[in-house]
């Protein structure tokens, strides 16, 4: 281990010297870059390219109503530094695909709720129901992720408020890390006790189980088609065995009591 320690130290020294030189040289350029970058990405209302931008914005809004594409265009290095919420929002899974477009829902619903015929199979109806369940699961996952993401965001904010950069500069990185873990744990635990979390958790569970049940139905239909015993048939058999076994145990106990 001694050799590898020395190696690590050497590597660290080398890196440190390199970084000092790098940051020294980059300071002025970085300031200029930040200023230029922020101006470059501010949309210009009269620019002909705006037409395309607006069309794109409308398109995205149709598919992901909760996401504001304009916010992405406003993000510059300076705005990141000023507004951490905005920066973190790009990592927020709930903003990616919070809701399926209503039109798709309406179409699926109309197919799934079509009346059944006795002598006609309706594969499209089954498929529409399955699709709806997949969308429900995606939505429930997204809602759950949103609650958890909000908890992480609150953790970052709480940590940033109570812990200044000075603590890190003092070299107590391990202490800073422990504080962060404590803050995050507290926030996650608090979140897990909220009605919003429990609601999202229950909805996710319901959606996941609906999906599992649908998978089972499909697997059983396949089993039935190929003369393979289904899960339901085996479960029925096991229930019968369990009841018989219980009866035998009870009779044996009664017999033993009677013999006493």
């Amino acid at each position, binding site marked *: *281990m001694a050799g*590898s*320690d020395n190696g*690590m130290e050497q590597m*660290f020294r080398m*890196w*440190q010297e390199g*970084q*000092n030189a790098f*940051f*020294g040289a*980059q*300071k002025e350029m*970085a*300031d200029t870059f*930040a200023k230029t970058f922020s101006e470059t990405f501010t949309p210009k209302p009269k620019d002909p390219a705006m037409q395309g931008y607006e069309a794109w914005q409308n398109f995205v809004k149709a598919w992901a109503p909760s996401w504001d594409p304009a916010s992405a265009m406003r993000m510059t290095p*300076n705005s990141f*530094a*000023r507004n951490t919420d905005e920066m973190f929002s790009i990592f927020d899974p709930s903003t990616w695909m919070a809701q399926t477009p209503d039109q798709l829902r309406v179409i699926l619903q109309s197919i799934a709720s079509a009346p059944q015929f006795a002598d006609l199979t309706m594969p499209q109806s089954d498929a529409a129901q399955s699709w709806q369940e997949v969308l429900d699961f995606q939505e429930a996952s997204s809602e759950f992720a949103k609650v958890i993401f909000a908890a992480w965001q609150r953790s970052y904010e709480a940590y*940033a*408020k109570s812990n*200044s*950069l000075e603590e*890190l*500069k003092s*070299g107590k*990185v*391990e202490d800073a*890390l422990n504080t962060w*873990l404590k803050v*995050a*744990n*507290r926030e*996650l*635990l*608090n979140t*897990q*006790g909220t*009605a919003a979390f*429990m*609601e999202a*958790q*229950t909805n996710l*569970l*319901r959606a996941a*189980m609906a999906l*599992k*049940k649908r998978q*089972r139905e499909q697997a059983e239909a396949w089993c039935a088609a190929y003369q393979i015993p289904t899960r339901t048939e*085996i*479960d029925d058999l*096991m*229930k019968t*065995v*369990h*009841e018989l*076994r*219980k009866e035998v*145990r009870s009779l044996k106990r009664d017999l033993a009591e009677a013999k006493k």
Partner: protein
Amino acid sequence: MTAGTDKPESPDVSEFAEVYQTVWKAMMEAGNRAVKSSETLSRLKQNDVQIAETPADVVFQVDKVTLSRYRPLTNKKADTPPLIICYGLFGRQTMIDLQEDRSLVRHLLRDGIDVYVIDWGNPTRADQFTTLDDIILGYLRDCVEYAIARNDGRPVSMFGICEGGTFAACLAALEPDLFSGLALAITPIDFKGDAENFRPGEGFLNSWTQHMSEEDINSVIDTYGNMPGELTGAVFSSLTPIASMTKYNLGLARLEGDEDAMLNFLRMEKWISDRPDHPGAAAKQWFNELYRENRLVEGKFELDGRRVNLGHISVPVLNIYAEQDHIVPVSCTRPLGDYIRPKLYQEIGFPGGHVGVFVSRKAQGVVAGGLSKWLIETQKQEAADTPDPVEGKSGKAKKK
């Protein structure tokens, strides 16, 4: 830069660089620690990580349930009836014998106590219709009756842990003649507890199940047949979110390659990973009738049509609870005292968490020592009449 300070709004690159370097240095140091742990980990093999090594023999079996009797570790024989240890179905009883210096079983054996332990086996979908009635009035009673037969027909003591404690309390209430004493640890009795005053992180199982409908719970169990061990494992992990997220990275790195510490950690991991599925029908009763409806303390819980009245427990009771238990809050365990005559009831409050009651070093004195002391003080049975633990021969004993 940081809320509450007068730093300039624009990031200062040199300041950033300074902090970046400090953090980088700490990361390098952490990396060194992680390398040490990684080296130790690469030396260790599965065979180096053993748990539940105290020798025991299976003496009775019914379906998948086995009753084992530990071999004595000393010639000393305590003047106490045999003790049956009954763990729950959400984990494995191996926790009581995790390693030689942290083993409740070894502690009891060294004090000369005759110890049995129940293993519920590995339920599969074939066991999904097994109910709490079957478990408590069937399997558990069968095991107790076997031990009583081996004890010349004299009652035995029982030590129920967590869910196993609830089983033991129900059986002791319905069949009080089977027992000479009842010890419980981290056992839920009042499944609602003092929900208004749960501290942060405490009682999630109580509030989550309260928030779900009977249909929601049944839906999960019907889908899988049983309550999958992986699912309950994930739920338990989520009760300590950051500890669960950091145990394989920061946690391991912080052990700095210490082999003993790493083996302790790995033994615990081995125990955690052995999480059997919970029979479906019994899980429905556990979560609906007990957690959601709190039937046990309301006197409405029935097994095989017989109502469980905790007030019928007529033997000495020791109730061990963990003061920082986040899974079974103190307010869920201590209400047992309301049902037992005060002169028969004792408590030990352990300053630790749910699992720490058995695996922490401190627990060996407080919990194992306390249990042993309670058995010897309250469960006297003539030593000369105790069946030979090795040969299983019974003496001509008379109940004291």
